[in-house]
């Protein structure tokens, strides 16, 4: 701001101060505040304003919706976890069946081999006796 602007600016500031001088709203205003305070203190206990703040917050529709969402999310999560456990148990059972089958096949093969060996031994014993 240069020196030439100082006076017009001062005049503007003075005019602003004069224009924005506080105005009193009057005795009616004070009475209205008193009446509203009295009304607030006379509210029945069942009025929502009388509900403790924490409870009022809890009963707010948004709070209830949030709580319902959390319950649904927990339930869905629990169900998914159960499903995952069931699938895992089924995979373990199938693996056990596969291993058991392989073991049985291996035992069957071994048993067959042992039978062959036993038959050959018996043939040798017969041949030795005949000699």
């Amino acid at each position, binding site marked *: 701001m240069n020196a030439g602007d100082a006076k017009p600016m001062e005049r503007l500031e003075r005019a602003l101060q004069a224009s924005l001088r506080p*105005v009193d709203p009057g005795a009616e205003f004070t009475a209205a505040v008193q009446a509203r305070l009295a009304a607030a203190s006379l509210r029945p206990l069942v009025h929502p304003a009388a509900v403790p703040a924490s409870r009022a917050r809890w009963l707010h529709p948004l709070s209830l919706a949030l709580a319902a969402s959390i319950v649904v999310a927990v339930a869905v999560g629990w169900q998914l976890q159960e499903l995952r456990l069931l699938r895992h148990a089924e995979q373990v059972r199938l693996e056990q069946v596969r291993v058991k089958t392989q073991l049985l096949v291996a035992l069957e093969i071994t048993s067959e081999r042992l039978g062959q060996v036993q038959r050959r031994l018996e043939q040798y014993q017969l041949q030795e006796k005949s000699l």
Partner: protein
Amino acid sequence: MSPTSLTLDLASLPADPLIGQAVDGDFAAARAGDASAFVRLVRHHQARVFSLALRLTGRREDAEELAQDTFLGLHAQLRNLDSALHVRHWVCRTVTHRSIDLLRARARRPQGQSLDQMLLEVPVEDASGDPLLHRTLRAVLLRLPEIPRAVLVLRYQEDLDPLDIAATLDLPINTVKSHLRRSLDWLRGQGLEMPR
């Protein structure tokens, strides 16, 4: 905006001649539950609170409701306030933020209106000096966006310095200074005839 947090360092402020011992006494008594002391506190601050809301919203009905709401809030908050000076800053801050919130909720500024139309809407007040100039200035102020308007009103109605305005509006001090400078330049450009 939340009016409940006060970042202003009250201890660093100079003594306020408007806050006398009687008001200090009323504050202490009101805080202890004396209803008549609270009414005296309301009387002491009501012109300041009502005028802030009136200058910011431009409507008497809105200003009365905002000011009354502010005093009801004050009644609920008294136990959290430390002094009569704290009360003054609390009510200024609260009514200013509530007025700005209302203006934003209204989501319209009378920028599209002519000055003549706006003059018809500006409440008539008893004023010394040049009533037409004062009324015109108040109407022109309503053309400013809410934050620059609040800065000017706090500066020239409440006589707050930029530091206090910054604390009241939660703005950086340089932003406040910038709003002040630009708003005054803008007002000067409106072609209003100022008395010499």
